[in-house]
């Protein structure tokens, strides 16, 4: 595996101010204050945590996969990656990573993309974009579908080859692997713990993730 900067965290779980489990198919939305650190733990391995970020002080400025890629000149996310908004504004920085690969070009599953990728009768299945929209509906922030830009898939392995191929490889994550990011700006985090049952990367078995937050 290349482009992986393995970094373990020194933070103590017992000092976290938030420690929650998000079951597969569930969503989560919370604001990080500058300096706060968010850890996402892949509890059972090879789960995808589909995650979006918004500038909490300007919700129109959402996470941008392309600004993040262009900003660092690299397609993969790992320790040191700065996740940027469309304007180029840095939102969070990855400060620890024990997984090895996090995808930012594969986006999330949706009812409609499932019909395209698998079969028309997959329309009714649970999917990440529905989870995102349910969270947006519950959140009093005026967000709509327009705000759902392409997201990060923490723990997902989507290799891009030098000749422009794109594949879905077996996950490189394992039980207990985690990624940790520090908020640079006030940042709203929106997570869908992926319920995808059509993709062999999680052995057709979506599993829980754990989220922890520490104050600076």
């Amino acid at each position, binding site marked *: 595996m290349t482009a992986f900067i393995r970094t373990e965290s020194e933070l103590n779980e017992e000092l976290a101010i938030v420690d929650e489990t998000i079951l597969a198919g569930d969503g989560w939305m919370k604001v990080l204050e500058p300096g706060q650190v968010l850890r996402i733990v892949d509890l059972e391995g090879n789960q995808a945590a589909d995650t979006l970020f918004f500038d909490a002080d300007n919700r*129109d400025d959402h996470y941008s996969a*392309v600004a993040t890629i262009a900003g660092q000149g690299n397609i*993969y996310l790992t320790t040191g990656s700065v996740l940027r908004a*469309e304007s180029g504004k840095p939102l969070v920085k990855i400060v620890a990573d024990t997984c090895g690969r996090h995808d930012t070009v594969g986006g999330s599953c949706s009812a*409609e993309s499932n019909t395209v990728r698998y079969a028309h009768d997959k329309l009714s299945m649970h999917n990440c*974009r529905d989870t995102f929209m349910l969270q947006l509906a519950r959140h009093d922030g005026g967000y709509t579908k327009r705000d*759902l830009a392409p997201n990060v898939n923490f723990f997902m392995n989507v290799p891009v080859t*030098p000749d422009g*191929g*794109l594949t879905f490889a077996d996950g490189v994550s394992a039980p207990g692997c985690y990624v940790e990011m520090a908020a640079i700006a006030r940042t709203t985090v929106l997570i869908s713990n992926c319920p995808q049952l059509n993709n062999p990367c999680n052995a057709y078995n979506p599993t829980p993730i754990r989220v922890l937050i520490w104050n600076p």
Partner: protein
Amino acid sequence: MTKLWSTTIAPGGKWSGVLAKGRLLTFTALQDDANLAVMLFNAHDLTERYNMPDTLKAQYTARLTRGNVLMSDNGRVLASIVEDDLGWHDTICGVTTREGTDAKYGATNYQTVRNDWLRSGYENFAVELVRCGLGVRDLGPVVNLFAKTACNEEGVMIYDTKHCKEGSQVTLRTDMDVLIVLSNTPNPLNPSTVYPTAAVKLDVEIAPAFQPETDYCYRYRGENRRAFENTETYHLLAGK
């Protein structure tokens, strides 16, 4: 094919407009090293727009060329790439910002240099999106026509400075009524320290009747066929 209209998008220029289903849009690079950023929306429902991940995942590719279709976030085909001289168009590197443009090419402003003020992709799109009733929240990945941005095994992105030659062409066919937004601004990864000056010509024609049984893009993969079927259902139900 009936020729309808032509325009030239100058370096730094922008354009937006509605194009009906069944139009052929031929883009021609008038100099080497062109880059034209393109965004697409459903003209009748602007919340439906080009979705880079859905497009790439469904077609197992990180680059765009003939045969590929540009899918919306609703699983439909907004447009298809029906002809292509280049074999690679970028959709993962986005557009330039004001800060990036000033840092790379030197700060400019209108007060000093008038129309030689260098434009950024973010600002061009911001203007056109607001013009069309949208806003910067609607920004997302664009298709950068004419640009090749590959990555090596380490994930390092490499911009191919020799990729696009003067006269290179790519042709999109609209498969829905679309709002298209164009910005002729540099690819963010273009290493040139001089602002690129390639104009791009756009010729619009009426496309031949769509024939699914022989259409290269429709037959390219099962995923493409299902996306076209979703589009057909949409048009059937909407009476279009």
